[in-house]
């Protein structure tokens, strides 16, 4: 049982690095993609957080980003292997268009995550460990401390910008 938990934590770290890297490369912290994302960013700043980190958190709320892509790709690989992951990428692409998202962070994240998750299933991981890992990874950004998470994201954005 402890080995499963250890693998879930490792999968969580891999998922975290994957989605944060893609989201920052796709400039999610630069500005709110829609007015709602901008409003969430400003609200987090009012609470004592960092504005650009808040924008990224707002963008994650308002459209499926690389984190959602990673989760759904892991679900796809769990259900049907690589074809399942690629089907998830298509669904994320449609989801982005439905949510008026001009970007491709979600689709890119889902495609990359499909191959990352599949690769890890070849070395003893289970795709379900990535599903739980991604839920833990998003918890650390969106669910624990908005102030702390936004400051961390703003620091990463500072390196990118």
């Amino acid at each position: 049982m402890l080995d499963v938990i250890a693998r879930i934590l490792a999968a969580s770290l891999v998922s975290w690095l994957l989605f944060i890297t893609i989201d920052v490369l796709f400039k999610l912290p630069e500005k709110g993609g829609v007015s709602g994302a901008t409003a969430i960013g400003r609200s987090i700043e009012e609470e004592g957080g960092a504005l650009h980190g808040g924008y990224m958190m707002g963008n994650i709320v308002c459209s499926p980003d690389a984190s959602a892509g990673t989760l759904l790709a892991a679900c796809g690989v769990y259900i049907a292997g690589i074809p399942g992951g690629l089907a998830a990428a298509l669904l994320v692409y449609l989801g982005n268009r439905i949510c008026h998202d001009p970007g491709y962070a979600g689709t890119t994240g889902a495609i990359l995550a499909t191959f990352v998750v599949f690769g890890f299933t070849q070395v003893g991981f289970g795709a379900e460990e990535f599903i739980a890992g991604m839920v833990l990874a998003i918890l650390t950004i969106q669910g624990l401390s908005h102030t702390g998470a936004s400051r961390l994201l703003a620091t990463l954005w500072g390196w990118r910008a």
Partner: protein
Amino acid sequence: MAGITGEEIALIIVVLVGLFAALRVAVENNTLRKLPYLNVLSFAIAAAIALLIRHPLALLAAAAFFVGSTLESNAIASTFAGGSTEDD
């Protein structure tokens, strides 16, 4: 705890995160700041759908639920922001 499978451990973690996020949504007073917690809850529900029902249509259900929930959060946040702007 003998005989518990990896899938069950994953499901337990997902459910615990979902319950925690639901509590945070309920406790937070600011509507805009509720939405990131709601986002975590949506992740947990989509994950639970796939873990509980290992069927191709479950992937469609999880994605449809997640995108629908995201669009609702988007609409709520944009309404609080004063409606759509030329960027939307």
